[in-house]
Protein backbone atom coordinates (compact mmCIF):
# COMPACT_ATOMS: atom_id res chain seq x y z
CA UNK A 1 0.00 0.00 0.00
CA UNK A 2 2.73 2.46 0.91
CA UNK A 3 4.65 1.46 -2.20
CA UNK A 4 1.76 2.18 -4.57
CA UNK A 5 3.84 5.09 -5.86
CA UNK A 6 7.15 3.18 -5.89
CA UNK A 7 9.34 4.16 -8.79
CA UNK A 8 6.96 6.75 -10.22
CA UNK A 9 8.72 9.67 -11.89
CA UNK A 10 7.22 12.92 -10.60
CA UNK A 11 8.18 16.33 -12.03
CA UNK A 12 8.26 19.06 -9.36
CA UNK A 13 8.01 22.76 -10.18
CA UNK A 14 8.48 25.01 -7.15
CA UNK A 15 10.37 28.28 -6.94
CA UNK A 16 11.30 28.18 -3.26
CA UNK A 17 14.15 25.82 -2.57
CA UNK A 18 13.08 24.95 0.95
CA UNK A 19 9.58 24.02 -0.20
CA UNK A 20 11.11 22.08 -3.11
CA UNK A 21 13.33 20.24 -0.65
CA UNK A 22 10.32 19.39 1.45
CA UNK A 23 8.46 17.99 -1.56
CA UNK A 24 11.55 16.09 -2.58
CA UNK A 25 11.85 14.53 0.87
CA UNK A 26 8.17 13.62 1.00
CA UNK A 27 8.16 12.17 -2.53
CA UNK A 28 11.33 10.19 -1.96
CA UNK A 29 9.84 8.80 1.25
CA UNK A 30 6.95 7.54 -0.87
CA UNK A 31 9.35 5.85 -3.24
CA UNK A 32 8.98 8.35 -6.09
CA UNK A 33 11.83 9.50 -8.31
CA UNK A 34 11.83 13.29 -8.35
CA UNK A 35 12.39 15.02 -11.69
CA UNK A 36 13.63 18.57 -11.14
CA UNK A 37 12.69 20.37 -9.02
CA UNK A 38 12.55 23.21 -11.50
CA UNK A 39 12.51 26.76 -10.16
CA UNK A 40 11.04 28.65 -13.11
CA UNK A 41 8.54 28.31 -15.95
CA UNK A 42 11.11 28.11 -18.73
CA UNK A 43 13.02 25.21 -17.18
CA UNK A 44 9.68 23.65 -16.22
CA UNK A 45 8.49 23.75 -19.86
CA UNK A 46 11.71 22.14 -21.06
CA UNK A 47 11.35 19.36 -18.51
CA UNK A 48 7.64 18.91 -19.25
CA UNK A 49 8.26 18.48 -22.97
CA UNK A 50 11.61 16.66 -23.05
CA UNK A 51 11.76 14.35 -20.02
CA UNK A 52 11.47 10.83 -21.41
CA UNK A 53 8.95 9.35 -19.06
CA UNK A 54 6.85 11.23 -16.57
CA UNK A 55 4.15 9.63 -14.45
CA UNK A 56 2.87 12.79 -12.80
CA UNK A 57 3.77 16.36 -11.85
CA UNK A 58 3.42 18.63 -8.84
CA UNK A 59 3.05 22.22 -10.04
CA UNK A 60 3.37 25.31 -7.87
CA UNK A 61 0.87 27.77 -9.36
CA UNK A 62 2.80 31.00 -8.81
CA UNK A 63 6.39 30.37 -9.93
CA UNK A 64 8.66 33.36 -9.45
CA UNK A 65 5.84 35.75 -10.33
CA UNK A 66 4.56 33.76 -13.34
CA UNK A 67 1.68 31.31 -13.56
CA UNK A 68 2.45 27.68 -14.23
CA UNK A 69 -0.41 27.06 -16.67
CA UNK A 70 1.71 26.84 -19.87
CA UNK A 71 3.50 23.90 -18.23
CA UNK A 72 0.14 22.39 -17.30
CA UNK A 73 -0.98 22.70 -20.96
CA UNK A 74 2.19 20.98 -22.16
CA UNK A 75 1.70 18.14 -19.69
CA UNK A 76 -1.96 17.78 -20.60
CA UNK A 77 -1.00 17.55 -24.28
CA UNK A 78 1.31 14.65 -23.37
CA UNK A 79 -1.27 12.99 -21.16
CA UNK A 80 0.78 13.45 -17.99
CA UNK A 81 -1.50 14.01 -14.97
CA UNK A 82 -0.63 16.80 -12.54
CA UNK A 83 -1.50 18.26 -9.15
CA UNK A 84 -1.44 21.99 -8.46
CA UNK A 85 0.09 23.28 -5.25
CA UNK A 86 -0.85 26.74 -4.09
CA UNK A 87 -1.25 28.90 -1.04
CA UNK A 88 -4.65 30.05 -2.29
CA UNK A 89 -6.28 26.63 -2.55
CA UNK A 90 -8.51 25.63 -5.43
CA UNK A 91 -10.53 28.85 -5.14
CA UNK A 92 -7.46 30.76 -6.30
CA UNK A 93 -7.36 28.89 -9.62
CA UNK A 94 -8.84 30.38 -12.79
CA UNK A 95 -12.17 28.85 -13.88
CA UNK A 96 -10.50 26.80 -16.59
CA UNK A 97 -8.36 24.82 -14.15
CA UNK A 98 -10.79 24.35 -11.29
CA UNK A 99 -11.61 20.75 -10.58
CA UNK A 100 -8.02 19.67 -11.15
CA UNK A 101 -6.65 18.10 -7.95
CA UNK A 102 -4.98 20.78 -5.87
CA UNK A 103 -3.02 20.71 -2.64
CA UNK A 104 -2.76 23.72 -0.41
CA UNK A 105 0.39 24.96 1.30
CA UNK A 106 1.51 24.03 3.88
CA UNK A 107 1.11 20.39 2.79
CA UNK A 108 0.70 17.12 4.54
CA UNK A 109 2.27 13.96 3.25
CA UNK A 110 -1.18 12.37 3.14
CA UNK A 111 -2.63 15.15 0.99
CA UNK A 112 0.21 14.84 -1.50
CA UNK A 113 -0.11 11.05 -1.69
CA UNK A 114 -3.91 11.17 -2.08
CA UNK A 115 -3.75 13.81 -4.81
CA UNK A 116 -1.06 11.95 -6.77
CA UNK A 117 -2.90 8.65 -6.52
CA UNK A 118 -6.10 10.33 -7.64
CA UNK A 119 -4.60 11.89 -10.76
CA UNK A 120 -2.76 8.66 -11.62
CA UNK A 121 -5.95 6.61 -11.10
CA UNK A 122 -4.26 4.39 -8.55
CA UNK A 123 -6.73 2.83 -6.18
CA UNK A 124 -5.84 1.36 -2.82
CA UNK A 125 -8.26 -1.52 -3.24
Amino acid at each position, binding site marked *: MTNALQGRRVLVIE*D*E*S*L*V*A*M*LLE*TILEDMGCAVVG*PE*ANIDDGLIAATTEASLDAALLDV*NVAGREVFPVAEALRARGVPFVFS*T*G*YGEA*GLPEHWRGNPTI*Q*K*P*FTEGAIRDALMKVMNISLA
Partner: protein
Amino acid sequence: MGLRTLAKTIDLVAAFDASPNPYMLLDADLRYAGMNQAYLDVTHRRREDLLGQPVMQEYDAGPGEDASENARQLAASFAKVLKTGKPDHLAVLHYPIPIEQPDGTVLYDDRYWSCTHTPIKDASGSVTHILQHTSDITELERLRRQVGRLRPEEASSALDSLIGGGMFRRAMSVQADNRRLESERRQLLDIFMQTPGFVAVLNGPEHVIQLHNGAYGQLIGHRDVVGKPIREALPELAGQGFYDCLDEVLATGEPFQGRQSPVQLQHMPNGSLTTRYLNFIYQPIRNDTGAIMGVFVQGHDVTDTVLAAERQKLMIDELNHRVKNTLATVQSIAMQTARSHEDPRSFAETFQSRILSLSHTHDLLTRSHWEGADLREVLEHETAAHGLHRLTLNGPSVSLDPAMAVSLGMIFHELATNAAKYGALTPGEGRVLVDWSVADLNNPHLAILWRETGGPSVAQPERRGFGSRLIERNVRHDLAGTAQMHYRDNGLSAEITIPLNKEAA
Protein backbone atom coordinates in the same frame (compact mmCIF):
# COMPACT_ATOMS: atom_id res chain seq x y z
CA MET B 1 -84.71 76.57 -26.86
CA GLY B 2 -83.71 75.71 -23.31
CA LEU B 3 -82.55 79.19 -22.45
CA ARG B 4 -85.72 80.80 -23.78
CA THR B 5 -87.79 78.38 -21.76
CA LEU B 6 -85.68 79.10 -18.72
CA ALA B 7 -86.05 82.85 -19.35
CA LYS B 8 -89.72 82.51 -18.94
CA THR B 9 -89.43 80.95 -15.52
CA ILE B 10 -86.61 83.01 -13.90
CA ASP B 11 -85.32 86.50 -14.20
CA LEU B 12 -82.33 85.92 -16.49
CA VAL B 13 -80.99 89.43 -16.05
CA ALA B 14 -81.08 89.12 -12.28
CA ALA B 15 -79.26 85.78 -12.47
CA PHE B 16 -76.65 87.29 -14.81
CA ASP B 17 -76.15 90.16 -12.44
CA ALA B 18 -75.85 87.87 -9.41
CA SER B 19 -73.13 85.64 -10.91
CA PRO B 20 -69.79 85.89 -9.09
CA ASN B 21 -68.06 85.61 -12.48
CA PRO B 22 -67.45 88.89 -14.27
CA TYR B 23 -69.47 89.20 -17.51
CA MET B 24 -69.94 92.03 -19.99
CA LEU B 25 -71.89 92.38 -23.23
CA LEU B 26 -70.78 94.32 -26.31
CA ASP B 27 -72.83 95.28 -29.32
CA ALA B 28 -71.61 94.70 -32.86
CA ASP B 29 -69.83 98.07 -32.75
CA LEU B 30 -67.91 96.91 -29.70
CA ARG B 31 -69.68 99.33 -27.38
CA TYR B 32 -70.65 98.28 -23.87
CA ALA B 33 -74.24 96.99 -23.98
CA GLY B 34 -74.29 95.65 -20.41
CA MET B 35 -72.26 94.09 -17.59
CA ASN B 36 -72.92 92.37 -14.29
CA GLN B 37 -72.04 93.53 -10.80
CA ALA B 38 -68.98 91.22 -10.58
CA TYR B 39 -67.51 92.94 -13.65
CA LEU B 40 -68.06 96.37 -12.12
CA ASP B 41 -66.48 95.15 -8.87
CA VAL B 42 -63.27 93.81 -10.39
CA THR B 43 -62.87 96.78 -12.77
CA HIS B 44 -63.70 99.36 -10.14
CA ARG B 45 -66.02 101.09 -12.64
CA ARG B 46 -69.60 102.34 -12.58
CA ARG B 47 -72.24 101.03 -14.98
CA GLU B 48 -73.31 104.51 -16.13
CA ASP B 49 -69.69 105.37 -17.06
CA LEU B 50 -69.32 102.33 -19.29
CA LEU B 51 -72.68 101.80 -21.07
CA GLY B 52 -72.50 102.92 -24.69
CA GLN B 53 -68.75 103.54 -24.62
CA PRO B 54 -66.44 101.79 -27.13
CA VAL B 55 -64.70 99.01 -25.25
CA MET B 56 -61.32 99.63 -26.89
CA GLN B 57 -61.50 103.24 -25.77
CA GLU B 58 -62.31 102.25 -22.21
CA TYR B 59 -59.87 99.41 -22.20
CA ASP B 60 -56.60 100.60 -20.82
CA ALA B 61 -53.75 98.14 -20.70
CA GLY B 62 -52.09 100.47 -18.26
CA PRO B 63 -48.33 100.67 -17.76
CA GLY B 64 -45.87 98.08 -19.09
CA GLU B 65 -44.28 97.24 -22.39
CA ASP B 66 -46.88 94.59 -23.29
CA ALA B 67 -49.83 97.00 -23.02
CA SER B 68 -50.31 97.68 -26.72
CA GLU B 69 -49.81 94.04 -27.62
CA ASN B 70 -52.52 93.01 -25.15
CA ALA B 71 -54.91 95.61 -26.57
CA ARG B 72 -54.19 94.33 -30.08
CA GLN B 73 -54.92 90.74 -29.01
CA LEU B 74 -58.19 91.74 -27.42
CA ALA B 75 -59.36 93.68 -30.51
CA ALA B 76 -58.30 90.77 -32.73
CA SER B 77 -60.36 88.34 -30.67
CA PHE B 78 -63.49 90.52 -30.95
CA ALA B 79 -62.97 90.90 -34.70
CA LYS B 80 -62.61 87.16 -35.07
CA VAL B 81 -65.87 86.48 -33.26
CA LEU B 82 -67.70 89.02 -35.42
CA LYS B 83 -66.25 87.54 -38.60
CA THR B 84 -66.56 83.82 -37.88
CA GLY B 85 -69.60 83.78 -35.60
CA LYS B 86 -67.70 81.33 -33.36
CA PRO B 87 -66.50 81.71 -29.77
CA ASP B 88 -62.89 82.73 -29.23
CA HIS B 89 -60.59 82.29 -26.22
CA LEU B 90 -57.82 84.44 -24.90
CA ALA B 91 -55.86 82.14 -22.57
CA VAL B 92 -53.95 84.97 -20.92
CA LEU B 93 -54.78 88.64 -21.06
CA HIS B 94 -52.69 91.13 -19.16
CA TYR B 95 -55.07 93.83 -17.93
CA PRO B 96 -54.01 96.03 -14.99
CA ILE B 97 -56.99 97.61 -13.28
CA PRO B 98 -56.66 101.34 -12.73
CA ILE B 99 -57.90 102.31 -9.28
CA GLU B 100 -58.44 105.93 -8.44
CA GLN B 101 -57.08 106.70 -4.99
CA PRO B 102 -58.80 109.03 -2.52
CA ASP B 103 -56.12 111.64 -3.29
CA GLY B 104 -56.99 111.53 -7.01
CA THR B 105 -53.92 109.60 -8.18
CA VAL B 106 -54.32 106.35 -10.10
CA LEU B 107 -52.67 103.09 -9.03
CA TYR B 108 -52.71 99.95 -11.14
CA ASP B 109 -53.70 96.56 -9.78
CA ASP B 110 -51.67 94.31 -12.07
CA ARG B 111 -53.91 91.40 -13.06
CA TYR B 112 -54.09 88.56 -15.60
CA TRP B 113 -57.28 87.26 -17.08
CA SER B 114 -58.49 84.37 -19.13
CA CYS B 115 -61.39 85.39 -21.44
CA THR B 116 -64.02 83.68 -23.54
CA HIS B 117 -65.83 85.76 -26.16
CA THR B 118 -69.15 84.22 -27.20
CA PRO B 119 -71.20 85.52 -30.17
CA ILE B 120 -74.91 86.18 -29.68
CA LYS B 121 -76.84 86.01 -32.94
CA ASP B 122 -80.21 87.21 -34.20
CA ALA B 123 -82.76 85.05 -36.04
CA SER B 124 -80.88 85.53 -39.34
CA GLY B 125 -77.62 84.30 -37.79
CA SER B 126 -75.87 87.68 -37.74
CA VAL B 127 -73.76 88.44 -34.67
CA THR B 128 -75.50 91.21 -32.79
CA HIS B 129 -73.61 90.98 -29.48
CA ILE B 130 -70.49 89.51 -27.90
CA LEU B 131 -70.61 88.11 -24.38
CA GLN B 132 -67.27 88.23 -22.51
CA HIS B 133 -66.71 85.80 -19.64
CA THR B 134 -63.60 86.47 -17.57
CA SER B 135 -61.58 84.48 -15.00
CA ASP B 136 -58.94 86.05 -12.81
CA ILE B 137 -55.77 83.92 -13.23
CA THR B 138 -53.32 86.41 -11.79
CA GLU B 139 -51.79 84.12 -9.13
CA LEU B 140 -51.39 81.21 -11.51
CA GLU B 141 -49.82 83.37 -14.16
CA ARG B 142 -47.32 84.84 -11.72
CA LEU B 143 -46.25 81.38 -10.70
CA ARG B 144 -46.00 80.18 -14.26
CA ARG B 145 -43.78 83.09 -15.19
CA GLN B 146 -41.49 82.51 -12.23
CA VAL B 147 -41.00 78.87 -13.14
CA GLY B 148 -40.69 79.73 -16.82
CA ARG B 149 -37.87 82.14 -16.01
CA LEU B 150 -35.71 79.10 -15.34
CA ARG B 151 -35.91 78.07 -18.99
CA PRO B 152 -38.67 80.11 -20.60
CA GLU B 153 -38.24 78.41 -23.99
CA GLU B 154 -39.07 75.01 -22.51
CA ALA B 155 -42.01 75.85 -20.37
CA SER B 156 -43.49 72.37 -20.57
CA SER B 157 -40.71 69.97 -19.82
CA ALA B 158 -39.32 67.36 -17.50
CA LEU B 159 -37.84 70.07 -15.31
CA ASP B 160 -41.18 71.89 -15.05
CA SER B 161 -42.83 68.64 -14.13
CA LEU B 162 -40.17 67.91 -11.54
CA ILE B 163 -40.07 71.22 -9.72
CA GLY B 164 -42.98 73.15 -11.21
CA GLY B 165 -45.79 70.61 -11.25
CA GLY B 166 -46.10 70.19 -7.55
CA MET B 167 -45.95 73.92 -7.09
CA PHE B 168 -48.79 74.53 -9.54
CA ARG B 169 -50.93 72.01 -7.73
CA ARG B 170 -50.28 73.68 -4.45
CA ALA B 171 -50.78 77.09 -6.00
CA MET B 172 -54.40 76.14 -6.69
CA SER B 173 -55.04 75.85 -2.99
CA VAL B 174 -52.67 78.43 -1.57
CA GLN B 175 -52.59 81.05 -4.26
CA ALA B 176 -51.76 83.82 -1.92
CA ASP B 177 -48.64 82.28 -0.46
CA ASN B 178 -46.48 82.03 -3.55
CA ARG B 179 -43.44 83.59 -1.98
CA ARG B 180 -43.00 80.56 0.24
CA LEU B 181 -43.35 78.29 -2.79
CA GLU B 182 -40.80 80.27 -4.70
CA SER B 183 -38.35 79.86 -1.85
CA GLU B 184 -39.05 76.11 -1.69
CA ARG B 185 -38.39 75.84 -5.40
CA ARG B 186 -35.11 77.70 -5.02
CA GLN B 187 -34.06 75.45 -2.16
CA LEU B 188 -34.85 72.39 -4.24
CA LEU B 189 -32.73 73.71 -7.08
CA ASP B 190 -29.94 74.58 -4.66
CA ILE B 191 -29.97 71.04 -3.35
CA PHE B 192 -29.68 69.75 -6.92
CA MET B 193 -26.81 72.02 -7.76
CA GLN B 194 -24.78 71.60 -4.61
CA THR B 195 -25.26 67.95 -3.77
CA PRO B 196 -21.93 66.08 -3.73
CA GLY B 197 -23.43 63.42 -5.96
CA PHE B 198 -24.06 64.06 -9.64
CA VAL B 199 -27.52 65.15 -10.79
CA ALA B 200 -28.95 65.69 -14.24
CA VAL B 201 -32.42 66.18 -15.69
CA LEU B 202 -32.99 64.60 -19.11
CA ASN B 203 -36.00 65.77 -21.10
CA GLY B 204 -38.10 63.95 -23.65
CA PRO B 205 -37.53 60.89 -25.84
CA GLU B 206 -34.11 62.13 -26.97
CA HIS B 207 -32.99 62.59 -23.36
CA VAL B 208 -31.99 66.21 -23.86
CA ILE B 209 -29.78 67.31 -20.98
CA GLN B 210 -31.82 70.13 -19.53
CA LEU B 211 -29.87 70.78 -16.36
CA HIS B 212 -26.97 69.26 -14.45
CA ASN B 213 -25.00 70.13 -11.37
CA GLY B 214 -21.27 70.66 -10.79
CA ALA B 215 -20.55 67.07 -9.86
CA TYR B 216 -22.10 65.88 -13.13
CA GLY B 217 -20.04 68.46 -15.01
CA GLN B 218 -16.90 67.16 -13.36
CA LEU B 219 -17.81 63.58 -14.23
CA ILE B 220 -18.09 64.37 -17.94
CA GLY B 221 -15.01 66.57 -18.13
CA HIS B 222 -16.88 69.88 -18.02
CA ARG B 223 -18.18 69.55 -21.57
CA ASP B 224 -20.93 71.89 -22.74
CA VAL B 225 -23.84 69.49 -22.93
CA VAL B 226 -26.90 71.45 -21.80
CA GLY B 227 -29.58 71.44 -24.48
CA LYS B 228 -28.07 68.46 -26.31
CA PRO B 229 -29.57 64.99 -26.64
CA ILE B 230 -27.55 62.47 -24.63
CA ARG B 231 -26.38 60.55 -27.71
CA GLU B 232 -24.88 63.74 -29.07
CA ALA B 233 -23.65 65.09 -25.74
CA LEU B 234 -21.90 61.91 -24.55
CA PRO B 235 -21.24 59.88 -27.72
CA GLU B 236 -18.67 57.65 -25.99
CA LEU B 237 -21.49 55.91 -24.11
CA ALA B 238 -22.57 54.17 -27.34
CA GLY B 239 -22.61 50.40 -26.91
CA GLN B 240 -22.31 50.58 -23.13
CA GLY B 241 -26.01 50.06 -22.44
CA PHE B 242 -26.80 53.45 -20.91
CA TYR B 243 -28.88 54.78 -23.83
CA ASP B 244 -30.97 51.61 -23.80
CA CYS B 245 -31.50 51.93 -20.07
CA LEU B 246 -32.74 55.50 -20.44
CA ASP B 247 -35.09 54.50 -23.27
CA GLU B 248 -36.38 51.69 -21.06
CA VAL B 249 -37.04 53.99 -18.08
CA LEU B 250 -38.88 56.41 -20.34
CA ALA B 251 -40.92 53.62 -21.92
CA THR B 252 -41.81 51.64 -18.79
CA GLY B 253 -41.66 54.21 -15.99
CA GLU B 254 -39.60 51.69 -13.99
CA PRO B 255 -36.57 53.23 -12.26
CA PHE B 256 -33.17 51.70 -13.01
CA GLN B 257 -30.39 51.36 -10.48
CA GLY B 258 -26.70 50.73 -11.25
CA ARG B 259 -24.19 49.64 -8.63
CA GLN B 260 -20.46 50.03 -9.20
CA SER B 261 -21.23 50.06 -12.91
CA PRO B 262 -18.11 50.55 -15.01
CA VAL B 263 -18.39 53.25 -17.67
CA GLN B 264 -15.89 54.31 -20.30
CA LEU B 265 -16.08 58.07 -20.08
CA GLN B 266 -14.19 61.10 -21.30
CA HIS B 267 -13.53 62.20 -17.75
CA MET B 268 -10.96 64.90 -18.50
CA PRO B 269 -11.56 67.75 -20.99
CA ASN B 270 -10.35 66.51 -24.40
CA GLY B 271 -8.86 63.50 -22.66
CA SER B 272 -8.97 59.88 -23.61
CA LEU B 273 -11.57 57.48 -22.26
CA THR B 274 -11.10 56.29 -18.72
CA THR B 275 -13.04 53.76 -16.70
CA ARG B 276 -15.11 55.21 -13.90
CA TYR B 277 -17.35 53.24 -11.57
CA LEU B 278 -20.76 54.73 -10.75
CA ASN B 279 -23.57 54.08 -8.33
CA PHE B 280 -26.56 55.71 -9.94
CA ILE B 281 -30.31 55.71 -10.35
CA TYR B 282 -32.50 56.69 -13.31
CA GLN B 283 -35.95 57.79 -12.15
CA PRO B 284 -38.84 58.69 -14.42
CA ILE B 285 -40.16 62.26 -14.13
CA ARG B 286 -43.94 62.48 -14.48
CA ASN B 287 -46.13 65.50 -15.06
CA ASP B 288 -49.45 66.21 -13.35
CA THR B 289 -51.31 63.78 -15.58
CA GLY B 290 -48.80 60.98 -14.95
CA ALA B 291 -47.19 61.14 -18.39
CA ILE B 292 -43.42 60.47 -18.32
CA MET B 293 -41.63 63.64 -19.34
CA GLY B 294 -38.03 62.69 -18.79
CA VAL B 295 -35.48 60.99 -16.58
CA PHE B 296 -33.92 62.22 -13.37
CA VAL B 297 -30.33 61.02 -13.07
CA GLN B 298 -28.52 60.99 -9.77
CA GLY B 299 -25.56 59.09 -8.41
CA HIS B 300 -22.03 59.01 -7.09
CA ASP B 301 -18.67 58.39 -8.70
CA VAL B 302 -17.38 55.47 -6.61
CA THR B 303 -14.24 54.84 -8.68
CA ASP B 304 -11.88 55.48 -5.76
CA THR B 305 -13.79 53.07 -3.53
CA VAL B 306 -13.88 50.35 -6.18
CA LEU B 307 -10.17 50.70 -6.96
CA ALA B 308 -9.28 50.71 -3.26
CA ALA B 309 -11.26 47.51 -2.77
CA GLU B 310 -9.46 45.92 -5.74
CA ARG B 311 -6.07 46.97 -4.36
CA GLN B 312 -7.02 45.58 -0.99
CA LYS B 313 -8.02 42.25 -2.51
CA LEU B 314 -4.72 42.07 -4.39
CA MET B 315 -2.83 42.83 -1.20
CA ILE B 316 -4.73 40.22 0.78
CA ASP B 317 -4.11 37.63 -1.96
CA GLU B 318 -0.42 38.52 -1.99
CA LEU B 319 -0.27 38.40 1.79
CA ASN B 320 -1.98 35.01 1.80
CA HIS B 321 0.45 33.75 -0.83
CA ARG B 322 3.43 34.92 1.23
CA VAL B 323 2.08 33.60 4.50
CA LYS B 324 1.29 30.17 3.04
CA ASN B 325 4.70 29.99 1.37
CA THR B 326 6.41 31.02 4.57
CA LEU B 327 4.48 28.36 6.48
CA ALA B 328 5.55 25.79 3.88
CA THR B 329 9.13 26.99 4.34
CA VAL B 330 8.85 26.63 8.10
CA GLN B 331 7.30 23.21 7.59
CA SER B 332 10.27 22.23 5.45
CA ILE B 333 12.78 23.56 7.99
CA ALA B 334 11.01 21.59 10.72
CA MET B 335 10.99 18.37 8.74
CA GLN B 336 14.60 18.64 7.55
CA THR B 337 15.84 19.68 11.00
CA ALA B 338 14.02 16.77 12.62
CA ARG B 339 15.83 14.35 10.33
CA SER B 340 19.24 15.38 11.54
CA HIS B 341 18.36 15.97 15.22
CA GLU B 342 16.95 12.98 17.01
CA ASP B 343 17.34 14.60 20.43
CA PRO B 344 14.27 16.81 20.99
CA ARG B 345 16.30 19.44 22.87
CA SER B 346 18.85 19.77 20.10
CA PHE B 347 16.05 19.80 17.51
CA ALA B 348 14.24 22.59 19.33
CA GLU B 349 17.40 24.70 19.59
CA THR B 350 18.38 24.35 15.94
CA PHE B 351 14.82 24.72 14.64
CA GLN B 352 14.25 27.81 16.76
CA SER B 353 17.46 29.50 15.62
CA ARG B 354 16.55 28.88 11.97
CA ILE B 355 13.07 30.32 12.48
CA LEU B 356 14.52 33.34 14.29
CA SER B 357 16.96 33.90 11.44
CA LEU B 358 14.08 33.92 8.96
CA SER B 359 12.20 36.28 11.25
CA HIS B 360 15.18 38.67 11.48
CA THR B 361 15.35 38.99 7.73
CA HIS B 362 11.61 39.72 7.68
CA ASP B 363 12.20 42.46 10.26
CA LEU B 364 14.83 44.02 8.02
CA LEU B 365 12.49 43.90 5.05
CA THR B 366 9.56 45.28 7.01
CA ARG B 367 11.68 48.33 7.84
CA SER B 368 11.98 49.08 4.11
CA HIS B 369 8.31 48.16 3.48
CA TRP B 370 9.52 45.06 1.64
CA GLU B 371 11.44 47.11 -0.89
CA GLY B 372 14.62 45.21 -0.15
CA ALA B 373 17.63 45.19 2.17
CA ASP B 374 21.34 45.91 2.05
CA LEU B 375 23.74 42.95 1.90
CA ARG B 376 25.88 44.19 4.80
CA GLU B 377 22.82 44.60 7.00
CA VAL B 378 21.72 41.04 6.28
CA LEU B 379 25.23 39.74 7.07
CA GLU B 380 25.47 41.72 10.30
CA HIS B 381 22.05 40.50 11.38
CA GLU B 382 22.98 36.86 10.96
CA THR B 383 26.46 37.00 12.47
CA ALA B 384 26.13 39.56 15.28
CA ALA B 385 25.38 36.86 17.86
CA HIS B 386 28.86 35.38 17.38
CA GLY B 387 30.72 38.60 18.20
CA LEU B 388 31.26 41.28 15.62
CA HIS B 389 34.98 41.51 16.45
CA ARG B 390 35.52 38.03 15.07
CA LEU B 391 34.11 38.88 11.68
CA THR B 392 35.42 41.24 9.02
CA LEU B 393 32.86 42.33 6.48
CA ASN B 394 34.26 44.01 3.43
CA GLY B 395 32.42 45.07 0.30
CA PRO B 396 30.37 47.75 -1.41
CA SER B 397 26.75 48.58 -0.72
CA VAL B 398 24.54 46.10 -2.58
CA SER B 399 20.79 46.30 -2.42
CA LEU B 400 19.00 42.96 -2.42
CA ASP B 401 15.41 42.36 -3.43
CA PRO B 402 13.22 40.72 -0.75
CA ALA B 403 13.56 37.15 -2.11
CA MET B 404 17.36 37.49 -2.31
CA ALA B 405 17.52 38.94 1.18
CA VAL B 406 15.50 36.02 2.61
CA SER B 407 17.69 33.47 0.80
CA LEU B 408 21.01 35.05 1.74
CA GLY B 409 19.79 35.51 5.31
CA MET B 410 19.21 31.76 5.59
CA ILE B 411 22.52 30.97 3.86
CA PHE B 412 24.56 33.22 6.18
CA HIS B 413 22.70 31.79 9.15
CA GLU B 414 23.76 28.26 8.16
CA LEU B 415 27.36 29.34 7.53
CA ALA B 416 27.61 31.20 10.84
CA THR B 417 25.96 28.39 12.81
CA ASN B 418 28.27 25.86 11.21
CA ALA B 419 31.31 28.01 12.02
CA ALA B 420 30.18 28.35 15.63
CA LYS B 421 29.75 24.59 15.94
CA TYR B 422 32.70 23.22 14.03
CA GLY B 423 34.75 26.08 12.53
CA ALA B 424 36.39 29.42 13.10
CA LEU B 425 33.73 30.77 15.47
CA THR B 426 34.24 28.00 18.01
CA PRO B 427 35.87 29.31 21.21
CA GLY B 428 39.39 30.41 20.34
CA GLU B 429 41.14 32.82 18.03
CA GLY B 430 39.43 31.98 14.74
CA ARG B 431 38.04 34.66 12.49
CA VAL B 432 35.71 34.94 9.54
CA LEU B 433 36.46 37.19 6.59
CA VAL B 434 33.61 37.99 4.25
CA ASP B 435 34.50 39.83 1.04
CA TRP B 436 32.13 40.65 -1.73
CA SER B 437 32.19 42.56 -4.98
CA VAL B 438 30.00 43.17 -7.98
CA ALA B 439 31.51 42.25 -11.33
CA ASP B 440 30.37 42.84 -14.92
CA LEU B 441 28.24 45.94 -14.72
CA ASN B 442 26.36 45.05 -17.92
CA ASN B 443 25.22 41.79 -16.41
CA PRO B 444 26.08 42.31 -12.75
CA HIS B 445 27.05 39.34 -10.66
CA LEU B 446 27.57 39.40 -6.93
CA ALA B 447 30.56 37.35 -5.81
CA ILE B 448 30.74 36.55 -2.09
CA LEU B 449 33.70 34.83 -0.47
CA TRP B 450 33.28 33.48 3.06
CA ARG B 451 36.67 32.49 4.50
CA GLU B 452 37.32 31.01 7.92
CA THR B 453 40.84 31.22 9.40
CA GLY B 454 42.48 30.34 12.69
CA GLY B 455 39.93 27.74 13.63
CA PRO B 456 40.16 23.97 13.76
CA SER B 457 40.89 22.19 10.54
CA VAL B 458 37.77 20.94 8.79
CA ALA B 459 37.18 17.95 6.58
CA GLN B 460 34.34 17.34 4.15
CA PRO B 461 31.58 15.71 6.18
CA GLU B 462 30.73 12.14 5.31
CA ARG B 463 27.06 12.88 5.07
CA ARG B 464 25.90 16.24 3.85
CA GLY B 465 23.81 17.93 6.49
CA PHE B 466 20.73 20.05 5.94
CA GLY B 467 22.82 23.21 6.31
CA SER B 468 25.13 22.56 3.38
CA ARG B 469 22.30 21.20 1.26
CA LEU B 470 20.26 24.30 2.01
CA ILE B 471 23.14 26.56 0.99
CA GLU B 472 23.79 24.72 -2.24
CA ARG B 473 20.14 24.35 -3.19
CA ASN B 474 19.14 27.84 -2.21
CA VAL B 475 21.89 29.46 -4.26
CA ARG B 476 21.20 27.31 -7.32
CA HIS B 477 17.42 27.10 -7.11
CA ASP B 478 16.31 30.43 -5.67
CA LEU B 479 19.16 32.67 -6.73
CA ALA B 480 20.13 31.00 -10.03
CA GLY B 481 23.76 31.14 -8.91
CA THR B 482 26.57 28.80 -7.94
CA ALA B 483 28.00 27.83 -4.57
CA GLN B 484 31.25 26.02 -3.92
CA MET B 485 32.34 24.82 -0.50
CA HIS B 486 36.00 24.11 0.19
CA TYR B 487 36.91 22.24 3.34
CA ARG B 488 40.54 23.01 4.05
CA ASP B 489 43.01 22.55 6.87
CA ASN B 490 42.91 26.24 7.77
CA GLY B 491 39.15 26.37 7.70
CA LEU B 492 36.09 26.31 5.46
CA SER B 493 35.66 28.68 2.58
CA ALA B 494 32.52 29.18 0.53
CA GLU B 495 32.36 30.93 -2.82
CA ILE B 496 28.94 32.12 -3.85
CA THR B 497 28.21 33.83 -7.15
CA ILE B 498 24.74 35.06 -7.98
CA PRO B 499 23.34 37.21 -10.77
CA LEU B 500 21.87 40.47 -9.42
CA ASN B 501 19.56 40.84 -12.36
CA LYS B 502 17.82 37.48 -12.55
CA GLU B 503 15.93 38.38 -15.72
CA ALA B 504 19.17 38.91 -17.61
CA ALA B 505 20.93 35.91 -16.06
